[in-house]
Structures are given as C-alpha cells and as structure tokens.
C-alpha cells in the first residue's frame, strides 16, 4: 500500500511540474460562447445566492412540488434572456435583486407550505429576472444561441442539483431524530434573509447618496 502511495505521489509531483496552461482552441470553434453562458451566472455572487436559495426552498418543500422547477427555471432564464435582448430590459435594479434575496430567505426561515403553482411562479419570475440580468453582458460578437444554451443548461443543472442535495439532506421521513436538519435549513434561510435585508438597506443608501 505504501508503495502505491509513493507511486501516486511521484505521479502527482510529475504532473504538477509539467503542468502548462491549457490552450485548447474551444473558443475559436465558437463553442466558447456556450461556456461563457454557462459560467457567467456562476461567477456572479447575486446569481449564486438567488439560485441556491431557490433550489433549497424548492427542495425543502418536497420532490412533488419542486420537480416542476426543473423545467420552469431554465425556461424562465431563456425568457429573461430574450426579454433582455429584445426590449433592453436588463435588470430590475439592485433593490429588486436584494428584495428577492430577502423574500426567499424569509420563506426558507418561516417554512410555510407553499402550493406548487405559487412556487412555480416565484421560480419562473426569479429566472426571468436573472436571465435578463445575464443578457446585459452578451456582446455583439457573442453567439446568442450558444450563450442561451449554456445559460439554460447551467440553470437546469444548478436548480436540479441544489434541490436533490436539499431533499437528501432534509429526509422528512426520517423522524424526530432528524428534526435538526429542518432547523438547519430554516437557519440557512435566516442567513439568506439577513443578507437580503442588508442589501436592501445598502441599495436604498446608495440611491440616497
């Protein structure tokens, strides 16, 4: 076993020593715009917080309610992207974004039984908002179809994975011994709501300056 460890260490050291920056020409093949669309929201803290909060909220409500979001969320992102490109509606503004973080956090913390339809409307509305916000950074030389495909794919993957992880963590059928997991999710909601509340305050303070 130790011999295997030594071999693995030598292989790792060789790998690190010989590492070069990757110069694959995927960007030149225009597929780069797909990755631009996919990576764009993942490098934006606002998108990350909102998407994760939405996924956790849907996951905490159970698979039967959350499964519609697998379709509704990426479609909403596409609708927002189209809206942003055609009408110039790029973002609802920092107050709306912060307000959305606050609302999602409060819903998570309060843990109400949200029916499927309102949950779908919230998710679709959020996706439209964020899709439009992402449209603001689509350049004139960007392949819009590939960018949209990348954005929709990452939206699908992010919301599905977050819901799945939350469902696996929540385990509502596990009984009273696992009740702390529900409390942990609600505490997470409290954190999200706190961040949203401060950002609402900051947005108003920035406006008044």
């Amino acid at each position, binding site marked *: 076993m130790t011999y295997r460890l030594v071999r693995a260490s030598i292989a*790792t050291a060789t790998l690190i020593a010989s590492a070069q920056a990757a110069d694959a020409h995927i960007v030149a093949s225009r597929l780069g715009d797909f990755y631009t669309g996919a990576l764009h929201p993942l490098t934006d803290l606002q998108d990350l917080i909102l998407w994760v909060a939405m996924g956790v909220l849907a996951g905490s409500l159970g698979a039967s309610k959350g499964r519609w979001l697998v379709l509704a969320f990426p479609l909403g992102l596409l609708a927002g992207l189209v809206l942003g490109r055609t009408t110039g509606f790029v973002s609802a503004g920092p107050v709306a974004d912060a307000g959305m973080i606050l609302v999602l956090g409060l819903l998570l913390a309060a843990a109400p039984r949200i029916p499927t339809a309102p949950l779908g409307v919230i998710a679709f509305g959020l996706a439209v908002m964020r899709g439009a916000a992402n449209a603001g950074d689509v350049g004139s030389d960007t392949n819009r179809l590939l960018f949209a495909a990348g954005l929709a794919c990452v939206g699908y993957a992010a919301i599905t994975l977050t819901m799945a992880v939350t469902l696996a963590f929540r385990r509502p059928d596990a009984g009273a011994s696992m009740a702390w997991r529900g409390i942990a999710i609600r505490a997470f909601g409290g954190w999200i709501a706190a961040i949203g509340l401060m*950002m609402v305050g*900051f947005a108003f303070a920035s406006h008044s300056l």
Partner: protein
Amino acid sequence: MSFRVFPRLVIALAALALAQPVFAHEQVGVTGGLASGLLHPLTGMDHLIAMVAVGIWGAQLGAPAIWVLPITFPLVMAIGGVLGVLRIPLPMPEVVIALSALVLGAAVAGRLRLPFAVAAIVVAVFAVFHGHAHGAELPNSANPLAYGVGFVVATGLLHLCGIMIGTLTRWPAGGRLIQGLGVVIAALGCYFLAQSLGAIA
C-alpha cells in the same frame, strides 16, 4: 481504509494545484469583501465572545431558544446592520456591545433561566447593536454583497460554536466548565466596558 484515502487525497491536491481561475465574469472585490466580512466578527474580541455566549446561553435555555436563536438572530442583527448602512446612529454602541459580553457571560455563568420572551428581547437588543457595528463597515468594503455574506456566515458559525459548547451541559462536569467559561466572558466584558467608558486605556 486510510490507505485508500491517501491516493485520492494526493489526486485532489493535484487537482487543486492545477486549477486555473475562471475569468468569464469575475466580480470586483468578491474575495476581499468576503474575507473582510468573515474576519470582522472574528477579529473583534468583544463581538466574538458575545456571539459565542449567545449560542451557549441558547443551549442552556434549551428548546425553543436553541433553535429559534440561529434562525432569527441573523435577521435581527441585519436590522441593526441596515441602521449602520444608513448611518443612523445608535446611543453608545461601544458601551452596549461591551455590556452585551458582560450580561451574556453573567447569564451563562449563573445559568440564568429567563422566560423565553424576555431572553429573546435581551438578545435582540444586543443583536441590533452588534449588527450596527458590522453594517457601518459594509459600504466601505470592496464588494458589499460579499462582505454581507461573510459577516452573516461568520456570525452564524460563532453561534453554532457556542451551541456546540453549550451541549456540554448534558454532563455535570461540562456544565461547570461552561459556567467557568461564562465567568471568563463576563470578566472580559467588564474589561471592554471599562475600556469603552474610558476608565482604562
């Protein structure tokens, strides 16, 4: 089993070492904002001990305080944070923050069992002052959102730390140890209070 883990660990380290940053849409100052937000509650000793004491006291009080606290405290603290962001002054913030360490430490030391509503009000008042101090720094940070995420997460983790320490009350020796810790927190609170009142340099 551990031998199986080692090669995987080595590979994971290699993957980390070879990782390149993504420059698709790097927001300005995220790392700096996050770091300053995370460090703000940790580098101020008066904040740190008060937050840990809140968690310990919540654990001593038991249900519902132990689970209401982590859910609502960040939110109440954020109200103070908003006041700080909007530059709305609070009376004697340094004195009240020092007092919070003294009072919460004394509550832990004396295993004070107040009615839940009264305990919640006491903690909420202190939370607003602590949030105000953090919120005042928010507009100056490189990335306000990242700063907000950092300080909320750091505060939540300090509570969690306090709650975990508080679970030692299940054992008689653990209970006494925690009461001793409460005395230390209260003594530090006394020191900070004297400092904020100008009695010592």
